Every structure is written in C-alpha cells, then in structure tokens.
C-alpha cells in the first residue's frame, strides 16, 4: 500500500503544486486507481513524488507502512516497488532493438542472462509484441513504441505501475488494446495508478478515483460516486463519461462499461 501523509510540494516556495495531500492507494482491494484533474492540477508532480524523483517539501510517502528513504539504496528499493511509464515513449527507450531495451532494467539488476531472456520473452508475449522483438525502434508506430516503453518497466515485476496518459496518441485500436493490457496486468497481480485526459477510458478501466484540483484532493470514490458530481467535474473543466451522461440525462441505469450496457440493458430486450 502507498500512503501519502500531508504531502506538499513546491518548486519555488511561491506556489504549492501539491498542498497537504493525504491518501492511501491500494487499500480496500483497489487495483486500478485513476487520478483525474485538468492540466496543471498537479497529477505529474504527484507521480514524480511517488517514485522519488521529487522529494516532498513537507509530509511523507510511506510504502507498506515504511517511510521512503531518500538515499541511493532507498530510492532504488522504491523504484523496484513502483515503476513509472511516462507519456513520451521516445524519451524512455535507450536501445535501438526492442528486446535489448526491454532487457535494460534487468541487466541493471544484474540478473543472469537466461533469466533475463525468459522474462523479456514473457513480457513481450503478454503485450503481444513478441513479433517485434528484433525490430529497430525507429520504425515502430507510436502505439508499438508505447508498448515497448511499458514492457521495459513491466519486466521489473514491480508491484505498482504508474501510467501517465497511456492512451495519448493511440488510435482506437491501440486504445482498446491498452484497456485489455491493463486488465491483464491486474490479473497478474500488479496494481496500476493512471492519469489520463480520456474520461471514458478512465471510467472503464479504473476502480477507484481521485480528483485533483489546484494541488488538493477534491473528491475520491468509486466510479459510481465520483462521476455523479457533475458540478464539481465542471468546475475542474472535466467532462462526464458518456455512460454516466446517458444515465443521468436519459435515466438509463449506470453501467460499469460498454459491455455491461449492451449486454444487460433493458431497452434492448
């Protein structure tokens, strides 16, 4: 479990990007946690605090009850527990051949060659990109690069994976694959924290939400509760997912995802 206690962060003491944030991530069986908020709400800063890239100005981060230590060893341990995939894939791929890049973190962990090989193959297979393993990065599509970037973190086998805008730049098919991938990660026992501007995607993939605005947690809850507060969402320049809209405006039941709607709706029958 990840716990933030009164965490504040500012770059320049002028403006607090995060302002006394307290939350517990991964309690109550939450497996895919969505962080919502408009541009500038502090989502990225929060992520960077979680992986120890930024150090809180005040307050603290606890992982499984233990305070994060900002030493070389402490941070390394932290990063084996929490992996992060950034938005721009190009900036996190260092090798020119897919399998070399995916193996990078494992080499840094000094694992034996055959174990590296096995883990890389398994992760590539899970992401359905085993066929790309010998391909040069520069000729992959944006969606393929995104998966390579994710594979490079997944391979560490960390308990948590943070995904920053996982669907940005993906075509509809890539978006569907990302949805499936997240389900698969969860089935593997990994926990996910993600932030995205794509409200429909968030609604369908996450099981618990935090709404961040001006550095504070403004709301939290399940999809049924968080998205029902239209006014608060609007104040934060966010929109409701369409499934919530048709629930609220058309009086249809609130469906958890599309499948749910099309399989169980009463209009259809």
């Amino acid at each position: 479990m990840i716990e933030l206690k009164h965490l504040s962060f500012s770059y320049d003491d002028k403006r607090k990007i995060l302002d006394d944030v307290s939350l517990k991530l991964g309690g109550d069986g939450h497996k895919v946690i969505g962080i919502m908020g408009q541009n500038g709400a502090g989502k990225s800063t929060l992520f960077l605090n979680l992986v120890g890239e930024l150090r809180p100005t005040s307050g603290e981060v606890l992982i499984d009850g233990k305070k994060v230590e900002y030493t070389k060893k402490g941070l390394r341990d932290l990063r084996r527990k929490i992996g992060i995939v950034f938005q721009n894939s190009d900036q996190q791929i260092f090798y020119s051949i897919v399998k070399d890049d995916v193996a990078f973190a494992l080499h840094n962990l000094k694992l034996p060659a055959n174990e590296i090989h096995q883990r890389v193959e398994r992760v590539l297979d899970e992401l359905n990109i085993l066929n790309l393993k010998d391909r040069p990065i520069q000729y992959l599509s944006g969606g393929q690069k995104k998966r390579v970037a994710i594979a490079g973190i997944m391979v560490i086998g960390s308990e948590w994976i943070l995904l920053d805008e996982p669907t940005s730049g993906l075509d509809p098919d890539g978006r569907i694959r990302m949805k499936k991938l997240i389900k698969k990660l969860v089935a593997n026992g990994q926990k996910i924290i993600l932030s995205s501007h794509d409200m429909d995607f968030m609604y369908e993939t996450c099981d618990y939400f935090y709404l961040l605005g001006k550095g504070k947690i403004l709301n939290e809850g399940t999809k049924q509760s968080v998205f029902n507060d239209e006014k608060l969402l609007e104040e934060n320049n966010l929109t409701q997912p369409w499934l919530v809209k048709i629930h609220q405006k058309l009086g249809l039941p609130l469906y958890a995802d599309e499948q749910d709607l099309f399989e169980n709706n009463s209009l259809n029958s």
Partner: protein
Amino acid sequence: MLSIDKYAYENRIVNWSPKLKALLWLLGIIIAFQPIQWLKVVVLFSVAGVTIFVARVSLKRYISWFYAILPFVLLSIVGIVVTVSSQRSSLIWPLRIGNVYLGIAKVMLPRAGQLALQCVTAIVCTYWFALTTPFIQILQVLKAAHLPRVMIEVTMLMYRFIFIFIDAFEQIHRAQKLRFGYDSVDLMVHSSSILAKMLFEQVIRNYEMMTKALDAKLYNGDFYL
C-alpha cells in the same frame, strides 16, 4: 532522411555475420587500391549489381546516393589535373595568361582517371557494407575490434537519439517551410537559426526526461552491450 539505414534492416543477407561482411568490405577496398585496373572495373560493377539485388533497392535510388558526392570527386579531380605551365604542348585546352598557359596537364590525365575509378570502386564497396549491415551489427564489429567501452556505449546511444532529433528536425523544418520560412536566402538563414535553437532546447528537455526514465529503469552507470 536516413534511407540507407532502413534498407540495411531489410536486406537479403541481414543475418550474415557482421564480421564476415566487414572482411568482405576490406577485400573490396584492397582491390580498389591495388594496381590492376580491369579488376577494379569488375569489382565496381559486380559489387554495385550485388548491392542493388541484395538490398532490394531500385537502380534510380542507388544512383541518387552518388549525386551528393560526385561534385566533390569531380572538383578534386579538376584540382589535380588543371595546371599552369610555360609549355603549351604539355597541356590540353591551353589558355594563355600572360606568358604562361593554364590547362589540363597531359601527364596527370591517366592518373586522374585511375583515381576516379579507385574512388568510385571504394565508394561502391562502402555502400555495399552500409546497405547490408544494420548499424546495430556495426556496433558488434566495433566491439570485436576492442574499441573502448565508453565510446561504444556513446555510439549506441547516439544512434538511437539521432532518430529522435531527425523527427523533431523534420517536423520543425516542414512547419517552417509551409509558413514560407525558406522562400529566400535571408529567410533561410533566419529559419535555420530558429531550427537550431529549437533543437538545442530539445537536447536539454530530452536530457531531463531521460534522467527520470533512467532512474525508473534502475540505471547504475553502465549500458550493457
């Protein structure tokens, strides 16, 4: 921009050992430098033919790679053959300037022809190597040649980063061009400066983000090769 790189990954003998390919290149270069002229001609045409076949490249595109370099080969040869002499008879197309003649030295002509042949043969061999050996394999050759580790690591990273900058370069250049940024010489200089500045800013931006990504990947100072 780097069409050669793309062809190199898709050629028919991509799986041959890079060391063997490097040795074949060396053999070609030795033939280009040895004195028997007809042998060079044979190598020139056979290697060019083999390259076109193996790399699945069209003749037109293959020849297009020569356009950029031929002017310099020609310019250098002009520099070699043109001379000033007081003897009109030693020159072809003599031009009288004062009491001397400017023209093409007869004695240098065969040498220039040989040089051109040697040059083109060597270039064809290097193209063969470049088009059949993806750069990743060339790194293996560098490793086998026991070049220092740091240099190979930096070369490997540079190869990856080049494509990031080329993307940025092409996007910026295109956007400038479509807003008339290269319509005259002065605009060209101005737009090029902006382009250089923007790329420079991306050096810093990439460095900052990559530092974070390296942490996430538990980097500890060495890139494995």
